């Protein structure tokens, strides 16, 4: 049996107050905690560090606001890859796998787990490079299928409902003024012309406190 892997991050390096919902439990951390140990479902610790670093270059934390690091994108991706999506549970997988034209869609056999595992092997040590070196390394692979997946998953992890492990504290939604699901916009939909109407974001679990959600990544 594989030893359980943890992503260990220094709280100071992320900064501020974060809420990670881990295994459906909210966990509030503060800068006083020296380190965060997050149980991983798919990645090894080394792989998680690379994905955390790479997604933070795609969606950096800077003057225009927080980014992939604060939103917990790596946790989101880890769960997705461990779940049915990562295993291609719902993709047509019958052989023969033949090369087609672009408009016929992705035809290779490798599932997202395998795509990540292979690509991360080639990025060993990435998390220890300087930001400039990291950008150069990503530029080299930006036309690969892996990079397209990582890019897409970074956006998903920034803006998904927090139930999926990303968008921690609805940090992504706050960044763009998205309020999350709202039970009614009927009074507002034809108002506020030309001005930003920005209700306070709420997550699904906040709206439906008693509902036990089963996000797709927890399905068999």
């Amino acid at each position, binding site marked *: 049996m594989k030893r359980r892997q943890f992503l260990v991050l220094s709280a100071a390096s992320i900064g501020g107050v974060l809420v990670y919902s881990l295994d459906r439990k909210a966990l509030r951390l503060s800068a006083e905690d020296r380190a965060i140990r997050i149980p991983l479902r798919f990645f090894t610790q080394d792989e998680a560090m690379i994905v955390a670093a790479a997604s933070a270059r795609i969606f*950096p934390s800077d003057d*225009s606001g927080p980014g992939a690091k604060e939103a917990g994108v790596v946790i989101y991706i880890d769960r997705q890859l461990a779940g049915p999506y990562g295993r291609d549970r*719902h993709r047509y997988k019958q052989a023969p796998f*033949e090369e087609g034209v*672009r*408009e016929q869609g992705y035809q290779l056999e490798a599932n997202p787990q395998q795509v990540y595992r292979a690509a991360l092997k080639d990025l060993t040590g990435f998390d220890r490079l300087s930001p400039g070196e990291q950008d150069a390394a990503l530029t080299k692979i930006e036309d690969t299928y892996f990079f397209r997946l990582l890019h897409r998953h970074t956006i998903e992890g920034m803006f998904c409902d927090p139930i999926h492990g990303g968008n921690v504290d609805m940090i992504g939604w706050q960044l763009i*003024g998205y*309020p999350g699901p709202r039970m009614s916009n009927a009074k507002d*939909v034809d108002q506020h012309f030309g001005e930003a109407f920005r209700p306070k974001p709420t997550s699904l679990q906040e709206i439906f406190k008693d509902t036990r959600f089963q996000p*797709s990544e927890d399905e068999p």
Partner: protein
Amino acid sequence: MKTLPRVDVVIVGGGWTGLLMAKELGARTNLKVVVLERGAPREPHDYLTDMDELDYAIRLRMMQDASKETVTLRHDPKQRALPIRQLGSFLPGTGVGGAGEHWQGLSLRFSPDSFEIRTRTIEKYGMKRLPEDCDIRDWGVTYQQMEPYYTRAEKLIGVSGKAGNLNGKIVAGGDPFDGPHSAEYPNPPMKMPHVAEMFRAATASLGLHPCPVPAATISTAYTNPDGIHRLGCVYCGYCERFGCMIGAKAQPTNTLLPVIAKQKNVTIRSRSAARRIVCDGSIKDQHAKGVSYVDEKGEEVFQPADLVILSSWTLNNNRLLMLSNIGTRYDPVARKGTLGRHLTHQVSTGALGFFDKPLNRFMGAGASGIMVSDYDADNFSHKDLSFLRGGKFMLLASGARPIANFGVLPPSVTATWGAEWKKASIQWYDRIGAVIFEGEHMSYAGNFMDLDPTYKDHLGDPLLRFTLNWQENERNMSDFSNTKATEMLRAMGAKETTDPARLQNYDCTKYQATHIQGGTTMGESPEDSVLNSSQQHWDVNNLFVLGASTFPQNASGNPTLTILAQTFRVADAIVERYLKNPGPVG
């Protein structure tokens, strides 16, 4: 194989058309009706907590499971067909309610001339103007014959809108290009978000005729003729790809299931996947004996029935007839045969505009928006144009959800990741207006369906194969639509607009529309169509087929209202004529 006790009617597929037929037969006859649905059962209250973009809109929780069943695609017979391994350009449903659960709610009538497209086009432009290989057909039914059924369908689902043509009289505020309506829409138009109002003002300033999109996401509480009460829309922005949390969007589960639940003669069997329609008799004079299917325990059983209704969406309507050896398969070389012929999709193009003010795009509904029909059908002169027919321009405020909409940028921003990309994506996120164009896709001799020789479904049956590509007519139409959409966005005050590429090869990775039509078309003669104008199989009198697989070609509008109207019409043909004298109803 176990044989079940005989029933009067077996309906294959529990979506909009199958359940509507079940409801009609349940209400108007004493026949024992069984509906077979391959997917899971569903109830209206399933959707209260489904506003999760990731699981529903991105991971496609409600759609057909491609690991079990998909289609293969090639652009022409020389290319190797490969499976569409993950859904993209269209999203078939599964489960009770089918794609009718996660549709967008646009409820348009087709233009009157589209039912007689071949006759009208040749009359006006001559045979020579038809594109090479063009195979368009008349439907065998006219708009005038369809009109009362359109009205019934609009009342069933409570369409919100403004009729622009009431009994031939043009009414301000509606669509003046629409065919005559015998009644006003049951509900007033939806509220319009700001960006839709900008589009309305801009298109009016260009001399066009904007009007509200007719919507099944209803504007106010409504009780339909069956006594079904639904609430008005709250503009939450979770329509297409979702079930409606409050039932404001008409869906089979909220509009038909509550009626069927009270009908003792109708039974819905979910997790029951039809494999064959079993027939006896000679090829040209077959008789359907019933349907074999795999039940929820995985056992194959035979359900005998006197009447078979096939209503399992375009893909399985075609595949089941092919697997069951019913009808004459289309031969694209000899251009003979009918089954699988006339495959069409939808031209779906448009442009994006970038504005200086925020638009609060999170608010809206699937079908809340404004459309113009000035460039639809033959509403404008094609004399000097390089294409025939047209489509509708729309601005829909459907609720811009963040995963799908973040990172959409004007051409002046070239970064695709990193700090500059992030900053620009945040800046533009809520300042985008999309003018979309839904154009007609004519049928061609070279676009068809047959069975794939290589790839199988999870039960071992061959997958359906698409041979499908865009032709010059659609490419030229898309160029025209891109230019027009850009003009409209500029008139709305866009600072920048995208410069959409010319339509190239059919691309299964990019969402177009879930409008796949044809293959089991209705028409006027067995040489040209699979079904007669009552949607009865030419060769098998006790088999009727429902849904968009019966369309000889795509019209510009969304197909749902038309398939509902057709189903009411077929129900009349069955109840008033077929049951009294089983045989061809013509």
